[in-house]
């Protein structure tokens, strides 16, 4: 009576694509249901407003609420957030894996994940920058060296990057390995079907067994509500939509109560020398000296983004827009030890509410981070550093900078952003904390799995895509061998 697939994969981002590919290779009949549209490279790289309309969930208007609201965006198109991310690649450090083991009894070791990282790195051509570093990276390196801190160039999943500076608008050259390029074509060659414009509203379950899903197909003229049945369902809708979908479907066990993020504070720096950040890839280095609680690195740049960073003190800052060629952007990122949650809205099937409260450690680390980053940038030759904090004027010298080692930034004046969210359905063997077992199977359900950012037990402290993909592959192969 209904349309069927052997396995449904909901969402085609970092987690969903790996899952679908491995299942397809193992001979399963796989259908990916993806809410967003599918685009060609020729559609990518459009101006930011157009890219936001097409590629971002709710056009990028998905703030995380809390005493300090935090700007948050994620992708909603075939390939998910990997289509708009910058492709920075980090393996999760062993220390974090051990903490996950200790706190959640997550049954996974560094050695076990290594094989899957290798696999993903090969597929995505992950590597270091091959030619001379762009100017925004060079000045950053200069600053770090002047400070004598440890740092590393972060590998990226963007072989042959042509510096079109369009990561967040969809890479028009196809160098950045979003899933629509890196994995989905191969998955399709193994028979995986991708249905774009299909938003799953509800998972149909009965006595611990999922039977299928109800989805809205967005099609010309009208939306169609359909039911699609499956023997197994993998939910890979990302850190906010996965718990929202489960909760909407009445699946609640440790779901949506433990959202974690990496809060970021953006700063712009004005140099005397021309940097032209708009014409190069974003800065490639991360300071590791203060890791894992604190990392300093380079942010996206466009005149619009710069204006947003300067906008907290716009009347004083707007004149500097004319210096945009001299003003790269950087960030202070903290591991995020606050707590958050995700809930579907009471009415409608599209709305998702997210909340996160900064912890006092977060605030402390952001303040210290601003001090450190400003010291670094001034040592690199910056004339002024502009944090996106209302009422905090430009930092002009080391003296201004170190003030934030001892003082806390005013909480209600902060303008924070994040693109890294996770842990809303933690996985592990510790049932009193976790929504799924170590392999992503939802507790209490025999054929329902989660395989995306939501299952990371806690904040990884590094860019998460690599770990999401490695875990997703490990879990999928486990599923294949177990069945």
């Amino acid at each position, binding site marked *: *009576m209904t*349309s069927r697939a052997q396995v449904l994969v909901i969402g085609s981002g970092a987690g969903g694509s790996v899952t679908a590919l491995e299942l397809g290779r193992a001979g399963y009949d796989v*259908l990916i249901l993806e809410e967003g*549209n*599918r685009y060609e490279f020729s559609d990518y790289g459009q*101006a*930011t*407003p157009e890219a*936001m*309309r097409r590629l971002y969930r*709710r*056009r*990028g*208007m998905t*703030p995380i609420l809390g005493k300090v609201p935090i*700007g948050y965006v994620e992708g909603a198109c075939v390939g998910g957030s990997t289509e708009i991310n910058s492709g920075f690649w980090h393996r999760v450090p062993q220390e974090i894996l051990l903490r996950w083991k200790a706190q959640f009894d997550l049954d996974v070791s560094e050695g076990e994940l290594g094989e899957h990282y290798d696999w993903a790195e090969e597929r995505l051509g992950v590597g270091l920058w091959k030619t001379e570093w762009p100017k925004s990276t060079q000045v950053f390196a200069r600053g770090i060296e002047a400070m004598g801190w440890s740092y590393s160039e972060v590998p990226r999943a963007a072989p042959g990057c042509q510096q079109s500076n369009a990561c967040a608008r969809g890479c028009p050259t196809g160098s950045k390995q979003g899933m629509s390029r890196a994995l989905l074509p191969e998955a399709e060659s193994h028979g995986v*079907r991708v249905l*774009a414009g299909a938003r799953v*509203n*509800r998972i149909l379950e*009965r*006595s611990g*067994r999922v039977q299928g899903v*109800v989805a809205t*197909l967005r*099609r010309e003229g009208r939306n*169609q*509500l359909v*039911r*699609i049945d499956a023997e197994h369902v993998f939910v890979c809708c990302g850190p906010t939509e996965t718990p929202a979908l489960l*909760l*909407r*479907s*009445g699946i609640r066990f440790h779901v949506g109560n433990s959202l974690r993020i990496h809060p970021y504070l953006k700063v712009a720096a004005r140099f*005397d020398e021309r940097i032209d950040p708009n014409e190069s890839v974003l800065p490639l280095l991360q300071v590791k000296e203060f890791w894992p609680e604190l990392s300093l690195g380079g942010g996206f740049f*466009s*005149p*619009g983004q*710069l*204006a*947003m960073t300067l906008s907290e003190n*716009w*009347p004083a800052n*707007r*004149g500097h*827009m*004319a*210096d945009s060629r*001299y003003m790269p952007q950087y960030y202070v990122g903290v591991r995020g030890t606050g707590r958050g949650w995700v809930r*579907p*809205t*009471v*009415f409608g*099937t599209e*709305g*998702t*509410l997210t909340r996160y409260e900064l912890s006092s450690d977060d605030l402390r680390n952001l303040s210290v981070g601003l001090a450190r980053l400003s010291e670094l940038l001034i040592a690199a030759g910056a004339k002024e550093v502009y944090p996106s904090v*209302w*009422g905090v004027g430009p930092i002009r010298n080391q003296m201004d900078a170190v003030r934030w080692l001892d003082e806390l930034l005013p909480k209600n004046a902060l*303008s924070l952003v994040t693109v890294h969210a996770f842990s809303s359905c933690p996985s592990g063997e510790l049932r009193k904390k976790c929504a799924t077992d170590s392999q992503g199977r939802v507790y209490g359900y025999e054929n329902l799995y989660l395989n995306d950012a939501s299952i990371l037990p806690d904040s990884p402290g590094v860019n998460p895509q690599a770990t999401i993909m490695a875990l997703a592959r490990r879990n999928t192969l486990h599923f294949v061998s177990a069945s």
Partner: protein
Amino acid sequence: MGSRRWLFVVLGLASSAGFLWLAFARLEFDDVRAAFRQADLVPWLPLAALSYLAGHFVRGLRCRLLASQDAKLTTLTATNVVVLGYAVNNIAPARLGEFARAAMLTQRSGLPYIQSLSLTFLERIMDGLVMLALLAVALWALPVGGWVTTTMEFASVVFGIAFVGVLLAVTAGDYLVRFAGQVGQIGGRRVHDRLVHAVNQAVQGVRYLRAPRAALVVVLLSGIVWLFEAGMFLCLLPAFGLEPSPWVALLAMTVTNLGILVPSSPGFIGPFHFFCKEALGVVGVAEAVGLSYAALVHLTFYVPITAWGVVILLVHGFHLSSAMQARAAASPLALPDLDDMPPPPDLPPNPEAREITRALCEALVPVDSLSAESRHEVLLETSAFVEGQLEALPARLRVLYQMGILGVRLITRIVFVRSLCGLPLERRRRWVEKWAYGSFGLGRQLFRAIRATALLAYYEHPLVRAELAATTKLRPKEASSRD
């Protein structure tokens, strides 16, 4: 909400208002007050409430039995399911309670939603039939005629038809499905599939009644349910000094319950009072006493069950959105031909900006040296983008934003005796900047979304970028000296 549902809600509210007017039109309020003052609430009110609640436990038992072929429920869970339906009907329009109840039953039991809904429908029909029988008994015992008999005749026809439908579904389910198939074929494959699906689920819903003994038990339980409800009506008669006649209680109970089948506001306010009062009027109870009695019965009917329902909503974390979602899912679902699916259409373009958004954007973006024509184009596109972004905000924030801007507009009127949109640009700019960048934190929060998106869209516009590129040829020192 779809337009049909809106119509239903508006119709319900109008009908409630109409019945309230009918109930109160010719009444002296002093008499009503006096009747209430003289009422003996103890022990009658607690007894009435107990009787009503006992009826719900029997309803729960009946629900458990009806679902027992496919699902194992405890009587308490089944009672909660039933209570939830009543409570939601008391607080939400358009009989959403029926859907909420079916949704919770699906959630708790794993039954397909349509099956849960047809169980609810079946219970309703049983209730109707039992009520007609009880009304017949009351009419036999009491010498009344006129509109009561007409109501009964009308209701008999409606429930008679429904009864035949149920009888057919119980005794000749397979034929009914086949017949639906034949009729459906006329409308093409999709109609055929949907119709067969729906009829099949409905037939499944009444399966329990196929065994005559089971059917008898269910009929008996339905009788007990309504006797308990009549108990509530009975207990409250002496509270107003009326003779506790079981026949009058039966008459009032049946007429009121048939009466509230007409569309009305949540909680049946209006029709409940009107029909209850009229039923007592037929046996010679004075209008003021009748209405006071009706109001008290309504409170007994409304308060405990609504409170219980709210507890269920909180304890089980049941979302009304699940009910709405389930209602959508209940319309027999289309069966997509997954292999022959056209791609989804492009996402909606930016909407046209409202005057207020245009006025705010104009005040927020900087002064530039663009030609008037170019500036007009940039502003048009910027404000359209901003409007789209504001519409994409989560509903809660959207409402807060609209309310906040309304407040700002009102204050503008008071301060300048002019509308915000009508303020000359320079003055508007200074005024808006006070809000957006001033020391008033709430004002800054209110303007954050609009100022950030306006600046982003402005600086990403090709005409502005071209202008910026031209002006940033200057060295920053020279540029900043222009500030």
